[in-house]
């Protein structure tokens, strides 16, 4: 019996010791690979980089709607304006907004006003782009993880937030800051003046969308324009890297390797090659490639390439041009765009200012592409271009803005406001029959939202217009 008692004592003590030692033995779950916090500069690096990609991601879809690009395959859903699943783009937009929310929170805590301002401007841009393509989206219940099924906010109310974020951003950028932005900023490398100009330029862009609504105020837009970009030098771009190619360059390289993409719409080719308009645009050979025979041949949206082979018989994006070099910049907002905004806004009240801005916009884009002075002057001198202040129409402005904004998603906002009234533009072949012969007016909510947050996703059709396009 003695032995048994001793044994029990030893066992009991052993088990007790083991259990108490357990706590520290088992306390090894801290993540050794990923930090629980990240520096604000690293967050800005990724946010500037990803924002430029978000512009490109949306542009890669809307370029088919506005007929810059056409699919080589017949009945391709992006050409025919079928509902497409935008789960990836949606994720990217909210992923950046999540990080921007972190930047704003951290900057407020630490008095890093420049980060705060830049974060607010980028938040306004990403939120504004999201609203422009989807309409109502979640925002007020986002990022705080109080619900896994955030409700959707009204798009018009979100626009108030976009403008407010821009105003706050501009104001904060003018404050003292506890931490300065530097090379971690892929857009401006820390130039605060440029950030302020970007804030104003974006304000002009988003306010322009509201033209035709009750809140629209021409002078407000022109004031924003005046404080915005002053030259191409001020453009908001992210220049790509040897380690990471520009995504349009990648499209062109892939197409050359027979992963087809980046085929040019017949609409675009014919607008610049003298078919739809009397002039031959000198920018055409700087923007797109030719067939093996050296001709510019577009592809009809929705029709596919027909019997054309997969290479050499159609114009496509080709590697090495302004938009498609491996280290080309991705354009977020440009001086050229701002000039066309000015032209459109001033057109009714001050045609002289509008005409000057229109010409300046063309010139700015040609300078960007390095069009020779001779070609530039020849084009600007063509009577179909230099129509004079008195004869300038919205059509002229929209046509030139359409060219100058090649591949940019802002063109789809223009197109919807302009009712797709570009010269000779027709609905694609094999148009989605649900559109009843009309052009698409919004994107479908992504499958990921429908499957994860279905109860909150608004019931909409692709013909339902978002608030500023009523």
């Amino acid at each position, binding site marked *: 019996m003695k032995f048994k008692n001793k044994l*029990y004592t030893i*066992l*009991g003590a052993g*088990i007790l010791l*083991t*259990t108490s030692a*357990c706590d520290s033995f*088992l306390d*090894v*779950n*801290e*993540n*050794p*690979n*990923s*930090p*629980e*916090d*990240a*520096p604000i500069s*690293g*967050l800005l*690096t*990724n*946010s500037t980089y990803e924002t430029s990609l978000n512009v490109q991601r949306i542009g890669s879809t809307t370029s088919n709607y506005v007929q810059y690009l056409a699919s080589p*395959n*017949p009945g391709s859903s992006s050409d025919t304006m*079928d509902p497409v699943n935008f789960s990836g783009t*949606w*994720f990217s937009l*909210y*992923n950046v907004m999540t*990080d921007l*929310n*972190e930047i704003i929170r951290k900057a407020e805590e630490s008095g890093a006003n420049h980060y705060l301002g830049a974060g607010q401007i980028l938040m306004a841009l990403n939120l504004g782009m999201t609203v422009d393509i989807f309409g109502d*989206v*979640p925002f007020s219940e986002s*990022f*705080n*993880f109080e*619900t*896994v*099924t*955030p409700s959707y906010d009204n798009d018009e109310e979100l626009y108030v937030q976009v403008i407010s974020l821009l105003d706050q951003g501009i104001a904060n950028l003018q404050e003292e800051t506890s931490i300065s932005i530097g*090379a971690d900023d892929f857009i401006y490398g820390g130039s605060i003046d440029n950030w302020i100009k970007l804030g104003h330029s974006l304000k002009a862009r988003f306010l322009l969308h509201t033209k035709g609504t009750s809140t629209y105020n021409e002078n407000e837009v022109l004031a924003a324009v005046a404080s915005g970009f002053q030259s191409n030098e001020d453009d908001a771009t992210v220049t790509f*890297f040897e*380690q*990471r190619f520009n995504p349009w360059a990648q499209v062109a390289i892939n197409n050359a390797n*027979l992963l087809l993409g980046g085929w040019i719409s017949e609409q675009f080719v014919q607008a610049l090659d003298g078919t739809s308009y009397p002039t031959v645009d000198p920018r055409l050979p700087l923007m797109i490639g030719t067939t093996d025979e050296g001709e510019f041949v577009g592809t009809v949206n929705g029709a*596919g390439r027909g*019997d054309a082979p*997969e*290479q050499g018989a159609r114009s496509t994006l080709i590697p090495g041009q302004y938009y498609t070099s491996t280290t080309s910049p991705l354009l977020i907002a440009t001086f050229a765009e701002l000039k066309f905004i000015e032209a459109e806004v001033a057109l009714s009240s001050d045609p002289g200012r509008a005409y000057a801005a229109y010409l300046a916009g063309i010139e700015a884009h040609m300078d960007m592409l390095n069009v020779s002075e001779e070609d530039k002057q020849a084009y600007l001198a063509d009577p179909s271009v230099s129509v004079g202040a008195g004869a300038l129409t919205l059509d002229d402005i929209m046509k030139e803005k359409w060219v100058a904004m090649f591949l940019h998603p802002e063109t789809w906002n223009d197109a919807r406001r302009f009712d797709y009234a570009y010269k000779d533009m027709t609905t694609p072949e094999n148009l989605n029959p649900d559109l009843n012969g009309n052009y698409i007016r919004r994107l479908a909510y992504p499958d*990921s*939202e429908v*499957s*994860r*947050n*279905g*109860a909150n996703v608004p019931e909409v059709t692709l013909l339902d217009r978002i608030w500023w396009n009523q």
Partner: protein
Amino acid sequence: MKKSYAYSLLFLMGLLCFNPLYAQVSVSGTVTTSGDGLPLPGVSIVVEGTTQGAVTSIDGTYTISAPSTESVLVFSFIGYETQRRTVGNNSTINVVMSEEASELNEVIVTAFGISQEKKALGYAAQSIDSEAITKTRQQNVVNALQGQVAGVQVTNSGGAPGQSARIIIRGINSLDPSANNQPLFVVDGVPVDNSTVESGGTPRGMSNRIADINPNDIESMSVLKGAAATALYGVRAANGAVIITTKKGKEGQIRVDFNSSLGFDQLVKKPKLQDEYGQGFSGERNDTSFWPSWGANIADENDPDYVYQDNWTRAFDTGIQFDNSISVSGGNEAATFYGSFGRLDQNGIIPFSTWDRTSAKLSGTIKVSEKFNFSGSMNYINSGGNRVPHDRFLERMMYWAETQDVRDYINEDGTMRTYGNTNPIYDARFATYEDNVNRIIGNINLNYSPTDWMTLSYRLGVDNYSDSRTEITPGPKGIDGERPLSSTGFIEETRINSRDITSNFYITLQKEWNSDWNTSLRLGNDIFERKFDRVTATGSNFVIPDFFNLNNTSQIFASQGKSIRRLVGFYGDLMVDYKNFLFLNVTGRNDISSTLPKSNNSFFYPSVNLGYVFSENFTLPDWVTFGKLRASWAQVGKDTNPHILGSFFVSPGVFPLDGQVGFSRNSTFGDPNLRPELTTSLEFGAQFAFFNNRVNLDVTYYKTNSKDQIIPVPISDATGFSSYITNAGEIENRGWEIVVGGTPIEKGNFRWDVSANLTSNTNEIVGIREGIEEIVVGSQFGYAGSRVTMILQEGQAYGNIFGSSYVRPGAPEGTTELDRSLPQLIGANGFPVRTGEQLILGNAVPKFFGGLRNDFTYKGFELSFLIDFRAGLQQYDQFGNFLSAFGKQEDSERRNDFVVFPGVLADGSQNTQEVWLGQGEGPDGVNYGAGYWRNYYRGVSENFVKDADFIKLRNITLAYNLQPSVIERTPFRTARISLAANNIILSTPWDGFDPESFSAGAGGNAVGFTGLGFPGVQSYFVTLNLGL
């Protein structure tokens, strides 16, 4: 809570009190076996009706005191028939024990390496012995289980040397797409790592780590299926366990065994291919075209430079494997030892694919005294090889022109010879990926029995490996006109270090209360730790061509991932045996895991099972030899992966860019209040033997529910996260397992044994989470909108494959499943109309599978064969999609035909329009563009989701054992020569390579996608076994 369990275990121990009796008659003697007459140690001797007992010593002797001369001594030993002797006036009683003929009394190794009589188990368990393992000639022991065990589904991921195989017991139990659904592997009582670490880039067909074990070292493998069988291994065995027992030395003469086997592998099956059309497009020949086979009719060209090259046969080699092993074993009363050395060299059928394995093992047992013994074992393994990029190889085969010689791949200066496209063999040769694994698996066991009713045991196990991988893709050599594999070239060095340590201490208390009641109680503590560290450095752009070192690259990226997981468990296991016909087993375990939140990291789960051998309780008709009913109920908890709680920031892989490192909040959020998962399983079974064991039958029904699953729930990206790891969802598996076997003929020297097993499994996703409709397990590319996706949805079975299909006007509104019997809609142009709407096209999990094994012996000859099958599943055939896109499939020989597609027009009338299948302008003047297969067929997923049932002759072996009369005249103890063939008959509706292939590798759950996997092989072996 933790402490109260510990106390309750102590309390249970206290139940076992002792009340010794005094004896009057002393009896002694020796127990021997009837077979070889050798003394039998460890035989239990009990005085019937008392608690008095003794055990024979190592020399088979015993001494026992009996109360009177009327006392009856009962001699029993596992696997032998129980003997009864009345004491009478004998002071010496020698007993000869004979083996029980029936396999019903077979011994099965269960938790912690404890041998148990199968008869006593209250749950289904099956084991296979060394012969059944080595006969299959499988180098991966997982494959050796194929078709041999009910409820166990083993799938090869492909035919590469050393390629992983996946094992699933009783269905998939987790909704987590990345969950490990495979069982725990335990070698000699110590859990070992069986993970598969796939390559980062293109699939390379890596090994599952259990492939390191040399099958020749294995004595037996038992499969413990339900949670009942595995409650004692804790959370890690929630998917079942495979218990491997290695060979040990035996007392007696030193034995030397030598095995040598030479094998040859061939492609078992390939898709039906066209051989009539060559390189070019639109029916026009072009010898530099990208298009491999949309060109001219070869016969019409009648040109020796434009002939069918039969590349799909000639690109593959005959694989060779050469396996040698030698073992030495022996021992005496005090110690035994076993040592072995094995070497396997294997070359696969894709050129330059290799794998080799060198293993050395030493184990021994030492009996220090009657009370104390210890044993240990150490296994060193070196394995690895060159893993060819099989997926890319087969993709490049797709692009390679049928009229260009694929074997003519290299120029004299070492650059690639090609007409334009990348040559697959050149790529396989120079784009290398070599792994080199050094692994040590060791264990030490101590057993101390201070009294005859108590044993203290301790076992420490270590499984430590380093996996060193080097991937090289050369850049340009700087030779004019070369076609390099990469414009920059790169080298990637990966170093993986993994270490598992298991510590297990337990006390066994045994008590034979009287001849009716027998109990044994085991109480223990189990500690586990896994440390894993992986460092990867990638250098690209070689400064000096073909000098492959990180120092010679102009850009270097590095990354690291490490983890640590610890588990502490306390357990108890009580077995009660009443009159040797009623067996009750109750277990309880409490685990504490480092991976769960501290407030929820300790969890308890119990099990109970009952076995009732009614044939020993009732008198049954003569022809019923044995009958048993069993029932079990068990729960098992499950923790999660380490380091997932809360939210983190990550630096996306693209950084650094221009010296800047960006950060982003990780889109996964781990619930800080995570609870352990709980799996509850219920099992009923019956086992019968008839006609003196000529026929036996074992039937099991099981039902397993896994609740509170820890899964990454996909949530709205607008929350700031995309995935929320939390407790959600339930999955159910239920099914039947039937094992039928017997010895239909045993006459003279002839014997025929047969064993068959059949399993049916039904899976249902009971729930996911409120508001969450689906979980995507994975998806695979298909051309022009034929991508397929495996999606889990509530109320459906695991494994549904979704994709595009033809429009069928007759389908009811809102239909989710494709009904292929309905007529297709034919468009105005005469071709069927496609819809991108995602419908369920099939399910990738088999509803039935099983195997049949036959063994015939006549004198020294043995003939055996193993057939296995699976049925009721579909797979996505990515090969088929590519073949149709490039005009390589046999069907494309119809390319100059007119057809009328059966179906209905939009107005409901039958289609009668004739259309041409070729490319360009048809004879009817209509322009058909890229033609039927490229414009229509390849873009419709339903064309490629097809039945993947099969029946395989997995193995057939003919062996001859030298007869005693002959062998006596040789220096050998045994000699055997055998011829075997694997997988030589394959019957399947599947048109393609062997359907038993999937691209995810054993670690992945997206099993329904073949990808461009390493094609399956058939093999032929000649094997020599010699014993000294």
